[in-house]
């Protein structure tokens, strides 16, 4: 009985860690967005919110925002579909949160004689799960657009659906190259395979087989389509603040905040997924399960727990760096027009990712791995 309780408790560790990391990242991203854009534009950014005169670089602004959102009027249009209007933001946030579950953030945690996979949900079809959750998230936007009884909101919801289909097709097709190279749909297996040396017959043990090296074209395609999936500038047609306000035009207070939160959560998910598939996941170069073993023959043995800690920190560092990069893109590029985004998706990303699959297949055949 106590064994079962212990098992449950240990299994709760990765789940709790995932929830903690994703939720906090989502909250802090509002601050990161304001501060990073300010620094890029020679401004100071949010720095006025304070508790007893302590400002901590404006880090209290997410807190102040949350209080503001919770105390604002919760408005609902008279002709809105009451149930769908209320459910929509929850759907949006829930699927964005759930999507992170099968992204591994470490190898295995050896504790109390057990081996725990550092992944909230161990799934053989992890990639498909993340894709499914990401695309289910768009139901929230469509529901919001429909339930608001507002033509602009409906247009926004429709655009969200069109954009999501465009992005999902490109994401799915570009990931196929990765799946072909590493031979698995399990994200933990893919992360492990990225620690092996790349083409040892040519390069020796020097270069780890990270996805960005084996699938450079897929990396660019996936990142582009991933940014489109987050519905942020340059792909912000569903919101389109300068033309239609978008699917959340009738929302106020914390419901609106949840839609904004879902965007940030999706940014975290895309960053986590890109890390897991293309940047080696939790891999640190030359760090094995028992310590560093450098190709020039030096060995640094490390205890298991320390190795696991380094891996988790490495994963989080990569995610943070990638989020920084996504923010940089968001504050640099002008937004695409609706037709431009559709053209980019269907005439650019999709054919290129099919081409990538063909090239990957040919190369695998030539290397004798297929």
């Amino acid at each position, binding site marked *: 009985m106590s064994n079962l309780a212990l098992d449950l408790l240990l299994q709760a560790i990765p789940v709790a860690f995932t929830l903690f990391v994703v939720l906090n990242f989502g909250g802090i991203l509002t601050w990161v967005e304001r501060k990073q854009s300010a620094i890029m534009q020679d*401004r100071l950014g949010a720095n006025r919110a304070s508790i007893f005169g302590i400002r901590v670089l404006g880090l209290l602004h997410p807190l102040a925002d949350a209080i503001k959102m919770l105390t604002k009027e919760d408005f609902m249009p008279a002709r809105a579909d009451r149930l769908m209007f209320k459910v929509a933001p929850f759907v949006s946030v829930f699927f964005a949160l759930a999507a992170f579950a099968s992204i591994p953030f470490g190898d295995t945690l050896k504790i109390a004689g057990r081996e725990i996979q550092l992944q909230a949900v161990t799934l053989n079809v992890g990639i498909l799960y993340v894709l499914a959750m990401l695309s289910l998230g768009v139901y929230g936007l469509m529901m919001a657009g429909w339930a608001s009884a507002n033509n602009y909101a409906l247009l926004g919801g429709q655009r969200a659906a069109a954009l999501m289909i465009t992005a999902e097709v490109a994401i799915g097709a570009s990931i196929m190259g990765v799946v072909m190279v590493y031979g698995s749909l399990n994200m933990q297996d893919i992360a492990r395979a990225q620690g092996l040396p790349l083409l040892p017959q040519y390069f020796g043990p020097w270069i780890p087989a990270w996805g960005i090296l084996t699938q450079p074209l897929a990396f660019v395609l996936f990142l582009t389509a991933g940014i489109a999936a987050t519905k942020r500038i340059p792909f912000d047609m569903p919101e389109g603040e300068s033309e239609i306000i978008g699917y959340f035009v009738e929302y106020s207070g914390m419901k609106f905040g949840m839609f904004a939160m879902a965007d940030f959560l999706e940014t975290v998910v895309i960053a986590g997924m890109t890390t897991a598939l293309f940047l080696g996941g939790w891999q640190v170069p030359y760090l094995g399960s028992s310590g560093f073993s450098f190709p020039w023959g030096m060995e640094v043995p490390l205890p298991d727990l320390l190795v696991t800690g380094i891996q988790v920190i490495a994963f989080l560092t990569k995610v943070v760096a990638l989020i920084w990069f996504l923010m940089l893109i968001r504050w640099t590029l002008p937004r695409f027009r609706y037709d431009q985004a559709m053209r980019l998706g269907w005439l650019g990303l999709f054919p290129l990712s099919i081409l990538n699959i063909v090239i990957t297949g040919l190369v695998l055949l030539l290397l004798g791995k297929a």
Partner: protein
Amino acid sequence: MPSPYQSSNTPADPRHSSRLGLAQRFYLLEVLSGLKLTGLRFFANMARHTLHTVFRVKSAHGAVTIQYPDERRPYSPRLRSLHRLVRRDDGSPRCVACMMCETVCPAHCIYIVATEHPNPEIEKVPERFDIDLGKCVFCGYCVEACPEDAIRMDTGILEFSSFSRGGMIYTKETLLALEPAGPHGVPTSPVPIPADRTMPVIRSTPS
């Protein structure tokens, strides 16, 4: 030869899509060059912020922001700010109530009532000298017109406000109490409290 009436983004415009090269139309390279620009700017500013905050190099500025209520930009000595009445050595106004400023004022915001000065050498003195700052346009004509150099606009005070129109009328006593601004236009006297503002008055002696 391009017509002067030609609007931008026509085929003759170098920014028109038909004039873009292949690399520009491919867009990805252009994206990278844009990201390089903003990314480098980010790190340059980040380095300046770190120097300023962590290493206390006060000359390093990562932003051009002046946090206004906390800090003011240096103002020119010629700045026209809140008026003040210049005092004689005995504390009475230097003004001789000649009505020059009231006459020249384009906004008709100065109101003067003259009276006799106890000193027979001095012709007159204002009994009342009110400026309606709600009407004042800060042209500075009153300062130029004054033959006695009795009114100046050098207090550096800009943040005067009131809840009512009556509160914007500043009286002789208020204007006489003001001092000229220090270097960079920093005010040396406190912002006068308007007549309609109920503020806790701290009395030195119980009344």
